């Protein structure tokens, strides 16, 4: 998203799909462009812009709007359908209701949720197994019991090609008697003036008149038949958002929330008068819903952060923890954090550990040094090592492969190694893609990927504290690939630099969204920035109470992540223990050594006995675990 408020213009973002174009056609030209700065992007990027306050209003998919929560919509403008829409189809060689598997394009959550609601309703709750794929892969894989959910241009291209197809716009109408809304102009309350709204509404009127021209242009670009596209924009897609569409959308939100597919949401227009606005839920009901395991949206998360007391959050997080882990067991792992080098090229402002290549204090661990450390892990009954370094500009992928094979052969320890940043770094060094790097490392012994380097997955924050580091999307992209390969990973958050409460919620939501897709995150850990000499960032929000609040909110929002760990290494064993009563079910790792945090001045040590004692003193049973959180010892 490049739109930024360089001037007083309204920052507008829109999905760049054909069917949306009539709504914003002309906004990038005079005279509208004097008032509006328009940016077209993918649906996820558009949603990100709103979430991170980079745009004021966005034409965004309705599922993303529900996830964010508390957004207002511009009355009268939407991309929707009343009956057949033609561009959102389930296709198969067998009757659609009898499919066993469904390939889905993961970029469109609204359509996936719609497909699941429709399929469940039509076949009494039965649903095919979903797996993600690109549109072309999806189409190619259709055979027997396997169908595909196809969206956009590809859906128009394959019309009539498959024996069975289900148009989801039509299916929704048949199911509910209501129109469906795919996308609408959304923004935070107060983001638009009445004139701004009128601008968007006028653009729609002009755009609708230019539908044929838009279709013809698209036909020329794509080679699709012009007549088919013209009728698509004229007859299939509907651009209204009135009372009936609102009912249809509200029905979609309600059904999705009941099915646990989206957070609860209310459709609200910018021009709803206060009397007509549904009053926001009380804090108590929000907490009760959270305790009951219901999914909350980002706005509700922000509300908890801003309004709930430490106890409200602690008790709700504890309730969520108990629901997920009813046996009152807190796990810990015997492993060792080994940093293979302190050489790093990123020079993050918050890091006191790294040294540039050639610096007198720069080092790479020798095999002898490693052998001693790993031998100690084995002797202590350890099951894995957490191996991370800096981004060393001269270590090639073969070095890692040899190292991994050697560790596996000599020590048989689990390898929880190389954060996404390092994977990307190796890829750049070798000219390899993420998948290729991960496949080679996996073959050499990599077992799982640590979630370090996530910091705050909001690029505005990342640019300020870690300019040279990967973007949020890159970080998440590595995790996506790793998860699809069957590797598990953890997720982390380091807050307390230049991040705001909203950034932290946004971070958690990005992890939740990816987890919906992959189910690959085993656990979430957070901690605050450890400020000390050697770092070049002033501390922001901090303190122990904030840590407990932050962890509790994460436990409440991350309904799809199994485990939350207390970061005693950064908070100290005392606070780490208290955090077990604020939603954590894991106490992290026994500490042999840890270099990064300790070079910022935080040093704590704790052996297995002390960990178990603290776990029990907090009212839990203790069990050792492996990286997949299987119990290795009976809880006691």
């Amino acid at each position, binding site marked *: 998203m490049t739109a930024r408020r360089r001037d007083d213009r309204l920052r507008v973002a829109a999905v760049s799909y054909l069917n949306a174009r009539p709504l914003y056609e002309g906004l990038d030209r005079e005279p509208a462009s004097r008032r509006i700065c328009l940016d077209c992007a993918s649906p996820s990027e558009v949603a990100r812009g709103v979430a991170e306050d980079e745009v004021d209003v966005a034409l965004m998919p309705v599922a993303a709007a529900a996830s964010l929560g508390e957004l207002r919509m511009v009355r009268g403008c939407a991309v929707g359908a009343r009956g057949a829409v033609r561009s959102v189809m389930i296709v198969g060689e067998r009757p659609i209701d009898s499919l066993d598997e469904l390939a889905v394009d993961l970029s469109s959550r609204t359509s996936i949720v719609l497909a699941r609601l429709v399929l469940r309703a039509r076949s009494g709750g039965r649903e095919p197994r979903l797996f993600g794929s690109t549109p072309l892969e999806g189409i190619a894989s259709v055979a027997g019991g396997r169908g595909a959910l196809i969206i956009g241009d590809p859906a128009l291209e394959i019309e009539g090609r498959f024996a069975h197809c289900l148009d989801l716009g039509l299916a929704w109408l048949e199911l509910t008697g209501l129109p469906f809304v795919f996308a609408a102009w959304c923004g935070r309350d107060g983001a638009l003036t009445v004139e701004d709204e009128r601008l968007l509404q006028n653009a729609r009127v002009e755009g609708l008149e230019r539908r044929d021209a838009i279709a013809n242009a698209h036909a020329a670009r794509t080679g699709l038949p012009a007549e088919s596209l013209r009728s698509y924009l004229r007859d299939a897609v509907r651009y209204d958002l009135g009372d009936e569409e609102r009912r249809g959308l509200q029905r979609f939100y309600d059904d999705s929330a009941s099915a646990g597919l989206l957070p609860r949401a209310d459709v609200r227009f910018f021009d709803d008068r206060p009397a007509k606005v549904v009053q926001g839920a009380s804090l108590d009901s929000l907490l009760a819903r959270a305790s009951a395991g219901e999914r909350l949206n980002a706005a509700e998360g922000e509300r908890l952060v*801003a309004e709930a007391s430490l106890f409200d959050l602690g008790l709700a997080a504890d309730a969520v923890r108990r629901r997920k882990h009813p046996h009152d067991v807190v796990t810990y792992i015997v492993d060792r954090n080994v940093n293979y080098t302190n050489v790093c090229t990123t020079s993050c402002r918050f890091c006191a550990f790294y040294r540039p290549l050639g610096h007198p204090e720069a080092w790479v661990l020798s095999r002898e040094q490693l052998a001693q450390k790993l031998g100690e892990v084995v002797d202590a009954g350890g099951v894995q090592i957490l191996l991370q370094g800096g981004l060393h500009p001269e270590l090639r992928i073969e070095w890692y492969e040899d190292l991994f094979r050697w560790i596996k052969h000599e020590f048989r320890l689990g390898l929880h190694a190389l954060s996404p940043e390092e994977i990307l770094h190796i890829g750049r060094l070798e000219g390899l893609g993420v998948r290729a790097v991960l496949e080679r490392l996996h073959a050499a012994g990599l077992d799982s990927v640590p979630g370090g380097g996530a910091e705050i997955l909001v690029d505005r924050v990342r640019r300020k504290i870690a300019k040279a580091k990967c973007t949020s999307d890159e970080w998440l992209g590595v995790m996506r690939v790793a998860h699809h390969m069957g590797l598990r990973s953890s997720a982390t958050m380091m807050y307390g630099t230049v991040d705001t409460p909203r950034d932290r919620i946004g971070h958690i939501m990005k992890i939740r969204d990816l987890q919906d897709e992959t189910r690959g995150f085993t656990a979430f850990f957070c901690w605050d920035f450890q400020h000390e000499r050697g770092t*070049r960032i002033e501390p922001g929000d901090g303190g122990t*109470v*904030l840590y407990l609040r932050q962890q509790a909110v994460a436990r409440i929002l991350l309904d799809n992540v199994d485990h939350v760990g207390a970061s005693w290494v950064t908070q100290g064993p005392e606070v780490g223990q208290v955090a077990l*009563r604020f939603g954590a079910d894991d106490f992290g790792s026994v500490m042999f050594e840890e270099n990064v945090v300790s070079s910022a001045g935080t040093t704590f040590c704790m052996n297995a006995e002390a960990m178990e004692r603290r776990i029990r003193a907090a*009212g839990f049973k203790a069990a050792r675990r492996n990286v997949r959180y299987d119990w290795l010892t009976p809880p006691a």
Partner: protein
Amino acid sequence: MTLDAIQDKLRARERLSFDDGLALFRHPDVVAVGQLANEARERMHGDRTYFNRNMRIEVTNVCVASCLFCSFAKLEEDAPGAHTMRLEEAWRELEVRMDDPPAEIHIVNGLHPGLPFSYYEELLAGFKRIKPDIHMKCFTAVEIHFFATHYGMTYGKVLERLRRAGLDSLPGGGAEIFHPEVRTRIAHDKATADEYLEVHRVAHAMGMRTNSTMLYGHIETFEHRVDHLMRLRGLQDETGGMQAFIPLAFHPDGNGMKNLPAPTAVDALRTVAVSRLLLDNVPHVKAYWVSMTPEVAQIALRFGADDLDGTIVHETIYRAAGSRSPSGLTVDHLVRLIQEAGRTPIERDTFYNVIREYPRAALPEGAVKVRDRKASKHLEVLS
């Protein structure tokens, strides 16, 4: 006794019983117990959270008592590590800090058999000469009892002479655990529970204020803790002279109970909370950061405590027992700890008169920025 029943009692302003106290100590959910204590604390003090500028001085670690939990005392004057300050040495601690002086000096010592009583009188008088308005909070009840027996005076006489020399109030140390089943094992050769309480009673009758403590987390049971708190509540009903109660966590390094684990943070928070709930007649409960670590003390400000104690400057007793806490904190640090907990920091004098009120963090505890950190601006300068 369920938590709900206790909650009903608290809301009806009914006094909690021994069994209630026991139930609170045994309740599995420390957060729920803390919430009750927080209600009581906010009813008494709202968000107001106190600290002061004080300085700890231990003038001698020579001690005739042989308490099992102590890593500080040396039995003989010439034992390794034994040290007794010359008076000038002690006064110098204040003299060198006169450009930013503490408001209170807190002196606690070993029970030294070889010093004349005049040493203590001169000690007090000397500090008052340097800074006439300094508050001298000195000598635990155990020391007062020792002075009385050692120098052949009544408690009243000891206190009177010390007061004339400059003593303003008594600290709460030396209470340990009152119950004889514990006290005879960990502190058999110093003031008994009754003697400790009697010293406080006499001081209160003279119009002096005192604090009280409990050393928990060693060999005592929850029954012993509740018993301890009930005895303090009884005395307070009688005299009303106690200002603050300070739970002190046992630290095991280098003392006669070094094989015991230290109590954990969850126990520390629970003890603060139950103390707040049982001691309904004591105005203040301190989260003594030296004992709990500043981090846990911050949480305790939401579990019933309304006071962080003070700057301390250089604490030695807990450090001798292996505490990780720093030996002193700055005023800025204390203010920040309190603000991050979403409370209003109040610098107080020893009698809880307000010296300065600092701005409270906006809604709610630590959820919003408490400092104007000008993050973006600052970074622009850096980059």
